[in-house]
């Protein structure tokens, strides 16, 4: 049995358990997805879509990542190489033992999504946390309405989860995919352009939307959504801050009186309007 959130609270929440990487998928030149199990091939913990986990190579460091999907016996984290730990993670091979603790954070409000049409908007590695929810909707297809995904990256090579985008998700009933890249390139006959403009061009009916991507994408997509009549409580995003403890104690990931690790990372636009405009 995977460890439940309640059980995690009983054990020392700051000490990781030993886990191993059983599969590594090269998503883009700088993003890899790591499939992680416990030593006895179980799920290290059972995260809700949108929840987080602390992954460590203890001699190098420990950092918080969104869990991008879970399987019967494993969890997945899609990680971009941007710093000391993530560069080291990109060097490891299958079979590597790692430390892991979690799940942390609130996750997406699944009950709120039940029966509704959902628009997913992602940019670059921003699809990683969103994918956990898309996978939940795909697994329990009958619980949700129409699914639409708008996803963009700098180039074709930079698109994460290509297998999902071009093979798996197109087969899912009542699911529309809109994939775009920033600039024209040879061998690409899909849409070209930035995500915010594409969202506006597609003129969606107001519905629940989950968006995650670089700040510049969020900045220009929000006004487009508001212009189309999306309500603040239906615009949902996930935030990122530097984290150390993951349980709302070490102090650094606060925005106002909220801790992103504990009260987030999922926030609605309605909630964000109550928080300070910066950090």
């Amino acid at each position, binding site marked *: 049995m995977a460890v439940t959130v309640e059980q995690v609270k009983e054990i*020392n929440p700051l000490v990781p358990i*030993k886990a191993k990487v059983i599969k590594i998928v090269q998503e883009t030149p700088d993003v890899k997805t790591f499939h992680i199990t416990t030593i006895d091939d179980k799920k290290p913990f059972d995260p809700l879509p949108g929840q987080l986990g602390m992954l460590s190579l203890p001699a190098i460091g420990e950092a918080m990542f969104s869990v991008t999907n879970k399987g019967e016996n494993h969890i997945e984290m899609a990680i971009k190489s941007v710093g000391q730990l993530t560069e080291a993670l990109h060097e490891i091979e299958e079979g590597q033992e790692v430390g892991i603790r979690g799940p942390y954070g609130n996750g997406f409000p699944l009950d709120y999504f039940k029966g509704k049409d959902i628009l997913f908007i992602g940019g670059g590695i921003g699809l990683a946390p969103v994918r956990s929810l898309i996978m939940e909707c795909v697994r329990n297809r009958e619980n949700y309405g129409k699914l639409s995904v708008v996803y963009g990256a700098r180039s074709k090579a930079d698109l994460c989860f290509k297998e999902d985008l071009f093979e798996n998700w197109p087969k899912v009933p009542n699911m529309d995919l809109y994939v775009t890249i920033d600039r024209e390139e040879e061998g690409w006959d899909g849409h070209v352009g930035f995500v915010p403009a594409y969202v506006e061009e597609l003129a969606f009916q107001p519905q629940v939307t989950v968006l995650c991507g670089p700040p510049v994408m969020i900045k220009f997509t929000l006004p487009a959504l508001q212009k189309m009549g999306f309500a603040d409580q239906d615009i949902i995003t996930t935030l990122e*801050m530097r984290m*150390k403890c993951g349980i709302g*104690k070490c*102090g650094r990931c606060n925005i106002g009186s909220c801790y992103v690790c*504990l009260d987030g990372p999922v926030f609605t636009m309605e909630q964000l309007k109550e928080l300070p405009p910066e950090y």
Partner: protein
Amino acid sequence: MMKIIAKERLPEVLQLLAKDYNVLVPAKFEGVSRFTPYSADVELALEENVLMPPKDIFFPQTEKMYKFKAKDKSLEIEELPVEKEEQLIFGIRSCDLKSLECLDQVFLTKGYVDHFYKDKRDRTALIALSCLQPQEACFCGSMGVDPQNGVGADIQAYDLKDKIGFKAISAKGQEILEKISGLLAEEEVTIPTFGEFNLKADIEGVPEKLQGMFDHPLWADICRKCLNCGACTYVCPTCHCFDIDSEVRGEDGVKIRCWDTCMFGEYTQMAGGHNPRPTKKERVRNRFMHKLRYFPERYKMLLCTGCGRCVVKCPVNLDITAIIKKIKEAE
């Protein structure tokens, strides 16, 4: 009636308690006063509160969390043995007791218990000591603290000038008092009147007012002379931010946590290069907002006890009471 002992005979009490507890007493060491394990040759410092707050007894400046061994693809993680020794703090002041209330909120509530903190908190008894006179920068009275009656102690001791009086507060305190009762006399006492505070702060309405002051120009003004040295956060009894890092020797390593400070730029520096608090304005604002607005909003109490240590130790004389006044007067 109160159980009392002459001040010069206090070491006899401490000596007796030291048989059952690791007794920590306010003492001067190399010119700095802090809580120190009692021994016959410690230089007791009972005239005024210690410079270094007692938080490190529960939340050490550097603390080992677990051991690990990393070799090639393999990893072993091993928890460290837990200390069992019962501790007793003698001479903790009301302001520092209040800081434990704040730290309890942080480390013991909101769904997750910090085991490292709880373990030490559970095996530490507290004998509070009342204050006779405010020190130069004390303003606990303005922060809802009574310098002569601490909250949360097992025993309240009273500084009666030439004597010390003891009053048990908790059952545990009663038990401790019985252990030392052979040394104590019983006497009718009058608790000396407390002096006048030199510093005061009018906190009324400040948390509420700060809600609308995130973008106020006063932060640029307040932060101007701040050096971001972090001294205020290290001497603060309530500041509790920490970093997690490791000490590695070859294949073996120990994960540690150590005090961190929101005054440092790296504190919020993210791997991708973005820093949400890039300049000292954001950092100073976060520190005071945290103490006076965010913490009260989250835990229904201020994150300042009026101990005055930051006022004394700030190298550029940033004074939180003056900042409270500025907030109060700001338009």
